[in-house]
């Protein structure tokens, strides 16, 4: 980052408090509401000016409520910034694929075990090899699971329920998935033949890029009471899955982006960036996208669910016990690229809004009716993956998140270095060696991927998490450290 950029970022923004910075309404002509960027002063110093422009662009879209927001892990995206959150009025607002992204319902799932770090270390190498073998990873990988067109419809409509009916996982898993692993209203007739073709062979595949599987252990507990409800305790081994809707979701977004680009013209919506193509929320174009997007969201939950199932099988083989006896329960599964119709309080009135979270996690408060019974007292688990080799965190939603950020928090560490620079400055084998010295084993389809995803290319996950904790929009519960990572 040049010094010029740093100065201009601080020149643009108005400091509200230590972790809240406002993009004033006049920063760009046509902003309906101010922007709010939730970052510490230090994180703001590494924020690109273009990210602020993207926050301002979103503030220009019709029917936006309160603020156009960005979480502390914000960085340059397309359309919305990554880390962008915005809510639009159900009647007078819009729906935009640019506020969801191509990887619809990219998200994270955390599974706990009753194994301890020392139980797993001696078998870690074999465990990782077997997981790498069992779960297809990398560019162009195909699943050993093939589904028919009729089954694909069932998956689009019924999400994780389909998987449980088929014998993948157990009924209890449904409760510990955001939206029960299935958002109603998905309509497979809005999904193109192309998206179906990409979706059929890819269920249970990890993909590539920042997606990963990780064997971790609980390094620190911040809140014993909350942690015990989530079934977490110090020294315990956990497993994390980070991936999304694969080709099905990418194609659904691509297809509908074309339609919505034309719809923006039809409805005379001035777009500051073509990637913000949108349509009035209740228009047929926006609703068609929304119903197709829900198909991809449900598909993504099944994808992570099938991967969890195969993970349980590998653990069963390695430790010669049933997964139930190994205590391999799903802690929770969160989406971090999604748009949802939710009820929120705006200006003291309960109102329905389309909340877009692009690289942001839902963080509902204790008592929220959408939470399962056992988590209603704690608030929703918020799972924040770290980058390769750094800590991940479990937090939980708070009352403040409902007031400040439409029930949302950050989603990860956030990149600071491009893949291009990472590949020229870092070497995959060297990064692998450094991680190995820290006790972290890596499996990857290509060494260059290890360089592209090295710890140095991300912001510090702990710094990002501290901002949401200090703001009060999510509360720290536990810190997880990696032991073994699988990269696609």
């Amino acid at each position: 980052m040049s010094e010029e950029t740093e100065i201009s970022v601080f020149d643009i923004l108005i400091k509200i408090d230590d972790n809240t910075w406002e993009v004033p309404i006049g920063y760009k002509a046509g902003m309906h509401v101010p922007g709010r960027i939730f970052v510490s002063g230090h994180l703001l110093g590494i924020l690109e000016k273009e990210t602020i422009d993207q926050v301002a662009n979103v503030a220009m879209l019709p029917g936006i409520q309160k603020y156009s927001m960005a979480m502390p892990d914000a960085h340059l995206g397309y359309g919305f910034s990554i880390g962008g959150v915005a809510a639009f009025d159900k009647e007078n607002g819009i729906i935009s694929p640019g506020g969801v992204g191509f990887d619809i319902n990219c998200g994270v799932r955390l599974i706990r075990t009753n194994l301890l770090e020392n139980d797993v270390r001696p078998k870690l190498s074999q465990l990782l090899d077997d997981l790498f073998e069992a779960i297809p990873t990398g560019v162009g990988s195909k699943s050993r699971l093939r589904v028919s067109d009729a089954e694909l419809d069932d998956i689009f409509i019924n999400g994780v329920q389909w998987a449980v009916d088929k014998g993948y996982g157990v009924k209890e898993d449904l409760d510990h998935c955001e939206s029960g692993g299935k958002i109603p209203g998905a309509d497979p007739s809005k999904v193109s033949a192309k998206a179906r073709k990409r979706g059929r062979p890819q269920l249970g595949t990890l993909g590539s890029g920042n997606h990963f599987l990780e064997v971790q252990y609980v390094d620190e507990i911040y809140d014993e009471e909350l942690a015990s409800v989530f079934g977490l305790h110090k020294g315990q081994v956990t497993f994390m899955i980070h991936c999304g809707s694969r080709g099905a979701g990418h194609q659904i977004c691509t297809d509908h982006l074309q339609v919505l680009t034309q719809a923006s013209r039809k409805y005379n919506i001035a777009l500051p960036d073509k990637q913000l193509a949108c349509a009035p929320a209740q228009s047929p174009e926006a609703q068609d996208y929304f119903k197709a997007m829900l198909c991809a969201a449900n598909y993504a939950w099944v994808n992570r669910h099938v991967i969890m199932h195969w993970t349980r099988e590998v653990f069963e083989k390695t430790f010669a016990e049933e997964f139930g006896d190994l205590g391999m329960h799903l802690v929770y599964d969160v989406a971090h690229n999604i748009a949802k119709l939710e009820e929120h309080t705006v200006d003291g009135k309960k109102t329905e809004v389309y909340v877009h979270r692009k690289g942001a996690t839902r963080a509902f408060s204790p008592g929220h009716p959408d939470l399962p019974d056992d988590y209603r007292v704690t608030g929703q688990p918020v799972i924040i993956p770290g980058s390769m080799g750094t800590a991940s965190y479990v937090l939980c939603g708070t009352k403040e998140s409902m007031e400040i950020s439409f029930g949302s928090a950050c989603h990860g560490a956030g990149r600071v270095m491009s893949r291009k620079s990472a590949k020229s400055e870092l070497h995959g084998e060297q990064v692998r060696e450094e991680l190995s010295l820290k006790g972290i084993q890596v499996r990857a389809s290509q060494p260059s991927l290890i360089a592209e995803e090295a710890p140095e290319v991300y912001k510090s996950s702990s710094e990002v998490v501290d901002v949401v904790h200090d703001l009060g929009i999510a509360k720290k519960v536990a810190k997880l450290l990696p032991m073994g990572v699988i990269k696609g």
Partner: protein
Amino acid sequence: MDKRYEYLEHTADARFRAYGESLEEAFENAAYAMFNVMIDTSTVSAETSYEIELTSEDIEGLLFNWLSEILFVFEVESLAFAKFAVDRLEQDKDNFRLVARALGEEIDLSRHRFGTEVKAATYNDMRIERTPEGWMIQATVDT
């Protein structure tokens, strides 16, 4: 053209500029730029040819469709590409139209060197411009 394409700095995604003496050539080089994010095209041989025909209301839409179609064919046909040939790029009264071939072979994980998956083409900061040397295309793809 000395340089067919180059990658620009972008924190999260891959942004590139592709050049060509003709618009057809710039479209070809944009496809090389995108595809080389995923796979080293020099490790692929051009054994089979896949025909692609597309239309769009505007030139940006045509580029978006072109890059999206290559990703689609790559994934569903399991084809890795070595070469892109845009045979015709024309404009009639309603539409822009492209007729092209993508040449490659079936994906072979033992021989082909893969990089990062490109999830999709985007319209973000897309530019298609005439230059003194011909044409310049700037595009960002989601990785």
